[in-house]
């Protein structure tokens, strides 16, 4: 299948851009960053094309459905959304330092998706997944997760930036944007992620109501998405308390992303539940 071939090449492209972003950070070579950006955009285009091709291929197989229906497809889409958000941010703040972490995360996700432990076959939709809510539910959830992922990268950078010492001339830290900008961007990413997570939970509830007859049943996936929602709700409220901005919010936001990862990965492989078809 041509789509998986393109996707595995995309993984190498993200690897190359990660290396170049890193060289830019360590040696302060701006040109490396520019090449990395071009590569990342190229990777994003190839990634998009592969997803569309996969969609087309499923129709050619006679089992047509959006490529958002199993573990492999969700990983691929997760990485896509992450890179998409990163490219938007790079364009907005004209700073490439976030790229090091964003491309690394996307690279790890794609490498895992391409590994032999993940089945990349296009499978037909089982009855419960045959719903108009599939596309909306998966897109809102994963774009939300990606926004939280970028928030995680920003928090990481924020904490690195805080190590800044005027005496040391560390290029790595110099190229990172101002901590205020990072804080504000992180807050914005959390807002976007939070709204999308809420929409993801709501569309999931509507779907569950039509498939299983209840909109909420405390199954592990639902509960963990609720836990994630609570943590980010706490992050948003904490901003209104004096002294909770900055470092504390960065750490809090990182905890939130661990919850996201657990909702996504942990529930499928450590806990079991109704969502197990996604494994």
């Amino acid at each position, binding site marked *: 299948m041509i789509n998986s071939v393109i996707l595995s090449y995309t993984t190498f492209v993200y690897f190359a851009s990660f290396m170049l972003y890193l060289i830019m950070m360590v040696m302060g070579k701006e040109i490396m960053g520019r090449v990395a950006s071009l590569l990342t955009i190229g990777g994003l285009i190839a990634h998009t094309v592969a997803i569309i091709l996969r969609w087309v291929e499923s129709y050619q197989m006679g*089992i047509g459905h959006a490529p958002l229906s199993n573990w492999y497809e969700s990983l691929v889409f997760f990485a896509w959304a992450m890179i998409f958000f990163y490219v938007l941010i790079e364009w907005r703040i004209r700073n490439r330092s976030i790229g090091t972490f964003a491309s690394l995360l996307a690279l790890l996700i794609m490498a895992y998706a391409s590994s032999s432990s993940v089945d990349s076959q296009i*499978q*037909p939709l*089982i*009855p*419960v997944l*045959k*719903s108009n809510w599939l596309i909306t539910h998966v897109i809102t959830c994963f774009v939300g997760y990606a926004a939280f992922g970028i928030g995680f990268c920003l928090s990481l950078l924020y904490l690195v930036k805080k190590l800044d010492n005027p005496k040391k001339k560390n290029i790595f830290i110099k190229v990172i944007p101002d901590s205020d900008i990072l804080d*504000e961007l992180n807050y914005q990413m959390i*807002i976007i992620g*939070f*709204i999308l997570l*809420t*929409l993801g939970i*709501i569309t999931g*509830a*509507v*779907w569950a*109501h*039509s*498939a*299983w*007859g*209840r*909109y*909420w049943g*405390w199954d*592990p996936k639902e*509960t*963990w998405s*609720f*836990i994630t929602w*609570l*943590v980010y*709700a*706490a992050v948003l*409220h*904490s901003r*209104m*308390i004096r002294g909770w901005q900055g470092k504390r919010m960065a750490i809090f936001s990182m905890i939130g992303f661990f*919850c996201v990862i657990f909702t996504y990965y942990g*529930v499928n492989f450590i*806990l079991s539940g109704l969502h197990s078809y996604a494994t």
Partner: protein
Amino acid sequence: MMIESNNKKKSNSLWNMLSSMKLTLTLLILLAITSIFGTLIPQQQEAMKFAQGLSPGLLRFFELLGLFDLYHSLWFRAIIALLALNLVICSINRLPTTLRLFRAPSRTDRSKPFENLPPERSFLVKGGIEDVGRHVANFLRKRYRGVLIKSTPEKSYLYAERGRYSYFGVYFVHFSILLILMGGIIGSVFGFDAYVNILEGGTVDTVVLRRDMTPMKLGFSVHCEKFSVEYYENGSPKEFRSDLSFHKEGTLPLKGSLLMNQPFTFGGITFYQSSYGSIPSKVHLKIQKEGSDLGELVIEVETGETFSVPGSESQIQVEDAVSNLNGMMGPAALISVKPKEGEEIRFWVFQDIERLSKQYPEAMLQAPRMNPSSFKPYTFFLQNLESRSYTGLQANKDPGVSLVWLGCFIMVAGFFMTFFTSHRKIWVRISKSEEEARISVAGRTNSNPLTLEKELDLVTGQLHKLLDKEGKKI
């Protein structure tokens, strides 16, 4: 007097605690942590096995705290209730401030916003301040409502604003949470959650409530005409489908198909396709009588049906039939023989007797419970088990669900109001500067400073362009 003021102080401190943001944070985190436990400890039906492995003391502790049904326990609900109370009290507390901000009169001539104005927000144009002021006012009126102007011969202030209602976004969000909780409560008090299995060709008028496993009359009957499963080429299921008809006295029967993701509502009760399976119904038996010319007797009986064989007055019944006994012994039927005198004889008859005789020791199959010749002088053989498929339906009524959806809608709308709209106030100052007029643009906002900056850039740029064009006309 002393006591009274003390009381007041006390109630005030309670009020302060309940309205504090720190309590909100504590409760959110507490709810998150306790929810985690519910995903680690097996809940409800799955709890049985886990509970058996616990020591009696630990078991009592778990039961006391309701840890096997954590999300429905009193204390978990109490945390949610406390959070709701906190939310209501916070809203009440903040309302006067919000209303003051919302109703605050617009102040046209303010110099404070113009302090530290970045140079790109100010420019010079040709013309008198009255002419220029008119153009600016027209420009602002096109974009904003309620433009205010205050002029002196030396200076002219124009004020415009947008998004005053944004102060209420957060109230919508919080109100929506109360709506969703209310919907949940209404659903659990006035609704029910039940299930029923209907055999293909069968009819039911009762469902079983999950809450306490008691039967409940539907008030109408449901007949299953057909249940079918479609498969893909690779063998995974493609579609589950139950063709049902609903019968209520005095009305014509209503046909309806039930698919996964496609429930059917009748008489206020919604049916969902939830499971399926098959149960053995008809049993084909072959009976031989030792040392007789009876030969073979072949009979077909339903489970539970009683029959007799020639040469004996005993009542024979097929008590039970299972498609796979103990999960490995294959199709089997439990035969019970009640002789006129003496004790009842019960034994299992297997269809795969040849395979079993190779797999299991002979002594085991000769045991009275397993020996097909236990009822002398007859030997029983199980030839075939006919099975009938059934469809498993979920039957629900939830009058609270529309309130939940309304809450969800309001929550998302509230998010957009809170996060993407803001009260933006814009001032344009026109001051005389010899032959020219100096235009300065400044603004204030309650949130989203970046959006305001963009708006100010846009207003400044467009004003500059417009006024330059107007200046050339003169």
